[in-house]
C-alpha cells in the first residue's frame, strides 16, 4: 500500500493547472479552481489503477481534503 505522501503526489499528477508543489495532504481539492466532475472521473480512474479500489461518487463528494480521500481508499483496501 502506498503512503499518504505518494498518494498526494499521484493526486497532484492528475492536475493540469495547479502547481504540484502547492498540493498537500490538507489541500481542499474541491476548492481548486480547475476541479470538475471530469477531474473526479480521472481521480476515480487513477485510484482504481493504482490501488485496485473503486470509489463511488459519494466517496469523493464527502471528502474535504486529499487525506480524506486517502483514508477512504485505505478503509476499502
Amino acid at each position, binding site marked *: 500500500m502506498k503512503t499518504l505522501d505518494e498518494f498526494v503526489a499521484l493526486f497532484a499528477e492528475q492536475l493540469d493547472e495547479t502547481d504540484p508543489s502547492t498540493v498537500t495532504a490538507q489541500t481542499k481539492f474541491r476548492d481548486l479552481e480547475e476541479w470538475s466532475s471530469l477531474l473526479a472521473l480521472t481521480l476515480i*480512474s487513477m485510484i*482504481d*489503477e493504482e490501488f485496485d479500489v473503486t*470509489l*463511488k461518487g459519494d466517496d*469523493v463528494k464527502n471528502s474535504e481534503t486529499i487525506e480524506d480521500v486517502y483514508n477512504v481508499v485505505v478503509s476499502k483496501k
Partner: protein
Amino acid sequence: MAFLEIKNVRVVGMATAVPKNVAHNSDAKIGGNDVDKFIEQIGVSERRESMLLTAADLQVSAVERMLSDLQWEKDSVDAILSVSISPDYPLPVNACMLQDRLGLSRECYAQDISLGCSGWVYGLSVIATLLRDGNIKRGLLVTGDSKMHWGKGREALLFGHAACVTALEYEPGSEGFKFEFGTDGSNYDAIIMPKSGLRNLHYDDEMIKQFEDPFMQHSMEAEMKSLDVFSFSISRVPESISTLCDHFGVDFQTCDYLVLHQANKSINQHICNKMMVDSEKAPSSLERFGNTLSSSIPVTITTQLKGKVEDKKTNFICCGFGVGLSWASVAFSTEHLVLSDLVEVDDHYYDDLKWV
C-alpha cells in the same frame, strides 16, 4: 451468480438502422464552458438523431433489410423480441406492433424487454432459450432506442439513436452461448427517469409550461450520476467477463473480439487497459454513433467488423452494462455471419403511416 449455457442456437446475421440525420457534437450549443474537454472524454464526434423517427420505425427498417439479406420469408419468423427503454407507447409493447408492421405471422411469439445497455445480452439469453428445443426455429432480437429525453445537460451529447436486429436460428449441434448475469438494484437511481412512471406521475401547470417550451428542461427527462456509473462500469465489467471465463473454462486469449457496450470513451478505455486488451480487439462505434444503449454491441459489430468476420469462424465475448444497474456477459462464435449494410432512414420515410 447466474450462469446459463444454451446450445443448438446460432447467430445468423445482424443489421443496423439509424436516422439519416447526423448531429455533430462540435456544433453543440449546450454543456457549458469546458464542453470540448467533455466531448473528448466521451469520444463522440457525431451521433444519429431524429426528432421524428421512433424506436419502432428504426426497428422496422433494420428488420426489413435483414430479412431481405437472409432471404427469410416473413412467415418463417416464429418469435420477435424487442428491447427498448424508449418504446413508442407504454402500452402496447413494440414487439406486438412490429409483428403487424413487418407482416409477420399471427402465430408469432412477441414480447418486449425493458432494459438499457445490458439489454442486448439479456435479450439474447431469452431468444436463445426460446429456440433451443427447435419448436421455434427462427427468431429476431430487435433492439432500438430513439427520442429519449436527456435534457439540455451534457448527457444529450453522448446518446445516439439506432435500432439493430440480430437474427437467430435453431441449429442442432451448434455450440451456442455461455452467459453470466448480474444486477445491483441498490443503485437504481444511478440512471433514472424519476418523473416518467407511476410513482411520481403528475401533470401540473409547471409541467405543461415545460412541455410547451422546447428549450426548457422538463422533469420527465433522464438523469445520470456519472461518477457512480463510471465506478460501476470499471469494476463490474472486468469482473463479469473473468467470472464468465472462469466458470465455463473459456480462454480469454482465444476470443477474437471483445465487444463492450459503448458507454463512453473513458469508461471503455479504462476497462480495456485494465483487461490488457488492445484497441484492435475491442472495436468501438462511439465516435460516429455515440452510446446507442442496448443497440451498441450490434451497432459496433455491424459497422466496425463488416468484412472482417463473415467468412471465418469468429469467437466473440460481449458485455452489456448500465441502467438497473444491470450487466451481462456472453461468449459465442459465429460462422458465415451475414452483416447487412447500414440502413439510413430519412426523417419522413414513415410520414404516410397514420398513428394514434
